[in-house]
């Protein structure tokens, strides 16, 4: 069993594609029309054959209360690894991205939480130098 694809709900697939590619730096992998929506996935340019992130329409009525409650408490719905959280924080705030949590030292990793403008909070994290990797 492998993790091949994971998904998040987004308010607007086209706006989400712009944010996840143009701002965050992911790359479009699949864009297959499916009725009014698309099977829309992105991958990391560092791992073009790695796991895909599915940007799924947020139309189901359960999505809004679920996301509203998590976002209110600052809880991220997806997490991405980066080399340097501080550098990403500087790069993304310069692009106008809003962070609900600036780079924070939580022991083995530095984390920060940003708003993806599509209804979700995203946590980025980097391992601190000298910490054992996850293998």
């Amino acid at each position: 069993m492998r993790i091949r694809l994971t998904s998040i709900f987004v308010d607007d697939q086209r706006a989400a594609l712009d944010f996840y590619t143009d701002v965050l730096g992911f790359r479009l992998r699949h864009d297959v029309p499916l009725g009014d929506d698309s099977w829309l996935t992105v991958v990391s340019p560092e791992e073009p054959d790695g796991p895909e992130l599915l940007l799924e329409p947020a139309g189901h009525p359960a999505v809004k209360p679920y996301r509203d409650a998590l976002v209110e408490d600052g809880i991220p719905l997806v997490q991405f690894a980066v080399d340097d959280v501080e550098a990403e924080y500087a790069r993304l705030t310069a692009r106008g991205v809003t962070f609900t949590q600036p780079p924070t030292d939580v022991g083995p990793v530095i984390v920060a939480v940003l708003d993806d403008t599509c209804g979700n909070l995203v946590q980025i994290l980097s391992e601190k130098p000298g910490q054992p990797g996850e293998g």
Partner: protein
Amino acid sequence: MADVFRALDDETRRLILDELVARNGQTLFEICGVLVSRHGVSSTRQAISQHLAVLEEAGLVVTERRGRSKFHYFDGGPLTAITRRWPATGRDPS
């Protein structure tokens, strides 16, 4: 004033205030993260949320909504009632 004493009579709540003084304006998620990583407090989010409610009732924490998230701030205002009643001065040498 009774609310303030009750709110302060708990180590986890005092640690929450410490962390808000260090960086004012944190979400519940951030508060839980720093409590567990810096102080080994591994209470559930629900428990921390209840601690925050006690602090908020006492006026020591105020919340503010920015965008769709809720941020918590320390407010030392209620503490001035304590030093007004019992001034924070040492004993005069006689």
